[in-house]
């Protein structure tokens, strides 16, 4: 199971400390003004200040044991300026007027030093002045206020449920994040935001020592921009999928899923190995989200397209000439993909981004045609956009903000269709659920995805579980093979809690919504080997 690292410069604290109120907005405004006035006096033409308090609680268990309880806080300020037409950035954990003044001076000095290497001056797209405003994730129950014991008891009951149903091993975890972010800029905005995210997760393993086999099944939860209410397990948010067990929308039943997972892990030990070949794939949103993330989200990051990530994550096949042609068929006519920072319950949901741009939604792919990218204030002019898309983000006060992926989602179909309806029309296919192995090339052409669960579809019906399944395709070919979409009632969110980008690397959290979707004639390989 994924074990994350802590946010930069964080200090372990007590669980109670996480509930202590941070500095109030009025005090932060006074400090922000110290930075804004200092940089202005030194000749900066633009400044933004981010005073951030980043709180994390990670709970990790294994079978009957608590493996770790981590409570961490990171508090500091990051100052970004434009001087001599060049960016400069500096950050400090000394959140005093003196500390901020020195930090502001350093940011300007770095900008001026770097300006000697600058080829052309930074030009920012205009942004509205919002004055003093605030925004909070609309949570119902702050997960950090729930006693640690209650959360540990939940994880241990998840473990017991899995062990009682035949699992040999189980790891479970609960990740909770609260970002208390204050943004101020010379454009006249003072924005106070309180952002919450949660991710319940587990891995259940079944072992057949006699045969020397083992198989695992991970939780079918999604990390969400929600509070602890995500774990209420509401019956109204469950539905029976065509494979005969419950899937979850905006409320997750972790114990129920653990029971199912243990049964699945055992079933996988003896499941039929797939016959390689072409299959029609029916992809559940809890699986398809990662395919969207890798094959649409990343290639449409404008900094990647321009070559800024060439030495690390790579560049992109979705070059500007394809966008300029206005007829590049990224996918079939059914494919409508939107970017947003406003979807309720999503990981990307905020009021404003980390350079004071109001969150919004925009089209990336319309009726299969590439129509836009993801751009921030200093990139908007490159694609003739009048304003930033509002997708600038830094993972900490100590990190410089840059373009990060917003939520990127596939719109549901407009005709009535459930997963049960969809399966009836598939003669030879595979129904895939859950996040598995994933790999894609540095320009996002060729990919290979696995999953958590694979079910053979024969003549419109589930014909049993398969193993050793992975599908390989090319991004454009794959999205053009999209032949059916379920409707809005089946639309669900998948999430990536620790998405990495940049050097030094920063993480961000992003959701991907989609309905169950069909892709025709996709190449499936068999990944079974003998050693």
């Amino acid at each position, binding site marked *: 199971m994924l074990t994350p690292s802590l946010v930069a*410069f964080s*200090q*372990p*604290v007590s669980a109670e400390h996480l509930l202590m109120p941070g500095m109030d907005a009025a005090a932060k405004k006074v400090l922000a003004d110290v930075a804004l006035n200092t940089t202005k006096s030194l000749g900066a033409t633009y400044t933004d200040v981010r005073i951030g308090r980043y709180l994390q609680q990670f709970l990790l268990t294994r079978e009957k*044991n*608590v493996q770790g*309880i981590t409570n961490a806080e990171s508090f500091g300020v990051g100052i970004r300026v434009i001087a001599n037409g060049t960016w400069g*950035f500096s950050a400090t*954990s000394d959140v005093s007027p003196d500390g901020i003044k020195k930090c502001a001076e350093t940011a300007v000095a*770095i900008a001026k030093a*770097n300006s000697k*290497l*600058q*080829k052309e001056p930074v030009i920012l797209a205009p942004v509205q002045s919002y004055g003093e405003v605030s925004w909070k994730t609309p949570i119902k129950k702050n997960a950090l206020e729930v006693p640690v014991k209650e959360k540990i008891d939940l994880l241990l009951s998840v473990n017991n449920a899995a062990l009682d149903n035949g699992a*040999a*091993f189980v790891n479970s975890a609960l990740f909770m994040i609260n970002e208390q972010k204050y943004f101020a800029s010379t454009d006249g905005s003072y924005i106070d935001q309180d952002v919450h995210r949660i991710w319940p997760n587990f891995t259940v*393993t079944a*072992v*057949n*020592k*006699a*045969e*020397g*086999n*083992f198989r*695992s099944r991970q939780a079918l939860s999604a990390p969400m921009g929600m509070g602890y209410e995500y774990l209420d397990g509401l019956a109204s948010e469950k539905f029976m999928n065509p494979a005969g067990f419950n899937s979850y929308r905006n409320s997750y039943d972790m114990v129920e899923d653990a029971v199912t997972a243990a049964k699945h892990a055992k079933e996988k030990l003896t499941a039929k190995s797939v016959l390689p070949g072409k299959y029609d794939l029916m992809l559940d949103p809890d699986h398809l989200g990662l395919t969207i993330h890798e094959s649409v989200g990343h290639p449409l990051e404008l900094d990647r397209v*321009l*070559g*800024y*990530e*060439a*030495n*690390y994550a*790579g*560049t992109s*096949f979705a070059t500007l000439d394809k966008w300029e042609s206005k007829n590049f068929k990224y996918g079939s006519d059914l494919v409508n993909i939107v970017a947003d920072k406003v979807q309720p319950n999503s990981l990307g949901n905020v009021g404003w981004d980390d350079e004071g741009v109001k969150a919004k939604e925009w089209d990336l792919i319309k009726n299969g045609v590439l129509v836009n990218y993801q751009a921030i204030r200093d990139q908007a002019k490159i694609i003739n956009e009048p304003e930033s898309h509002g997708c600038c983000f830094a993972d900490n006060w100590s990190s*410089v903000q840059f373009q990060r992926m917003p939520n990127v989602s596939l719109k549901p179909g407009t005709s009535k269709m459930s997963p049960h309806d969809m399966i009836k029309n598939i003669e030879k296919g595979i129904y895939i659920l859950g996040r598995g*192995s994933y*790999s*894609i*090339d*540095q*320009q*996002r052409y*060729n990919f*290979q995805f*696995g999953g958590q669960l694979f079910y053979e579809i024969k003549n419109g019906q589930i014909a049993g579980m398969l193993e*050793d399944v*992975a599908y*390989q395709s*090319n991004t454009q070919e794959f999205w053009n093979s999209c032949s059916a979409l379920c409707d809005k009632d089946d639309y669900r969110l998948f999430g990536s809690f620790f998405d990495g980008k940049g*050097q*030094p690397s920063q993480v961000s959290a992003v959701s991907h919504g989609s309905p169950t979707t069909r892709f025709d004639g996709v*190449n499936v*390989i068999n*990944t*079974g*080997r*003998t*050693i």
Partner: protein
Amino acid sequence: MAILTQEQAKAIIDKVLSYAKADETEVTISGGRTGNIRYARNTVNTSGETNELSLSITSVYGKKSGSTSINELDDESLKRAVSRAEEIAALAPENPEYMPMLGPQNYAPSKTFAKATDSINPDYRAQLAVDSIKPCVDNNLTAAGYLEDFSGFVATGNSKGLFGYNQSTSVDFTVTVRSADGTGSGYAGRDFNDAALLNAGQVTNLAAQKAMASVNAQAIEPGKYTVILEPMAANDLLRLLASGMDARSADEGRSFLSKKGGGTKLGEKLFDERVTIYSDPAHPDIPAAPWSGEGFPLEKTTWVENGIVKNMFYSRYWAQKQGVQVVPRPQGFIFAGGDQSLADMIRNTERGILVTRFWYIRAVDPQTLLYTGLTRDGTFYIENGQIKFPVKNFRFNESPIIMLNNIEAMGKPERTGGNMVPPMKIRDFTFTSLSDAV
């Protein structure tokens, strides 16, 4: 004052321990300077330097432990931190797998510190970027690169009398060079403890040569090929095998080292008899810190000898449970090589593929250690002993276990990614599809 001397660190640790009331207390101080410079499109786009100093305290009552950390070292702050760690420990659940702290250990002096790296400053970083960018501009190529350097220390001590101190430095430089039309791409990178060994111009030149040589790659059919893996490519897969040699997972039946019917493959021949893997903290090219994460002194250890599995990692808890000696996880591996040069291997190849590096490697099946990923930044077709032309990148699905049973030849190991890895010639390497990515 990001780097404390051994005496300064010991005095602070002793002071913290004198404030402690818990059954056991451990104090670790670490600090240092991390610097970086990043460039792309032939221009610098990020550079920075961070100085950090942090003191962490772990307090233990019975099997309940709590930790805290601070970055102020005045007496009042230290006292408050000790109290906080003890409060957290008192409220923590018991950890049945908790192992009592170690007493005094004999740590050998390390060779992990180099003055040249310690002396790196913003001017050095800017000059490195210029040295890398300028020849690319001159040759109508585009460079994107990243340098990260570190100089720091760690000191640890506990209430049972253990104390250790170590200073270390590191420098890691990578660069991607692309042709102006984007049809060729090359990559090179080096990592050292001693920055005096790093020549950014040479590294960039290698990437530039690969970029120019890889222009207009041709598509050839995927399938099983003889491959020649440069050390970076070999390390991409071998490090995954070596780092997975955990005894607990093997004993629990969920590892490639688990045996049908129960038990492990310790003592069994799993690889070609030319395969020997060991670790040595005193190795001059990949020196390691004197102790492992659990505080055990690191010693020279053989993991695989002549293809036979000789050792697995045993944590303190698992070693005690199994009644065996602790075998700490090492910091770097040395994969013994052979006597062929890369040029020899190419010359002796009738038909094969030369691979610079792999990319986006992900586990497909942990039971067989099957991985998938792609070639990147310089993949070439070899025929009749010569590199004939660049080829489009491949996706592979291969297990390093199978790979280490299909060895044709090996060269002299060199440092890459913190390990010592030889270039390797492997038969029947499985490429499953083609990629258009450059």
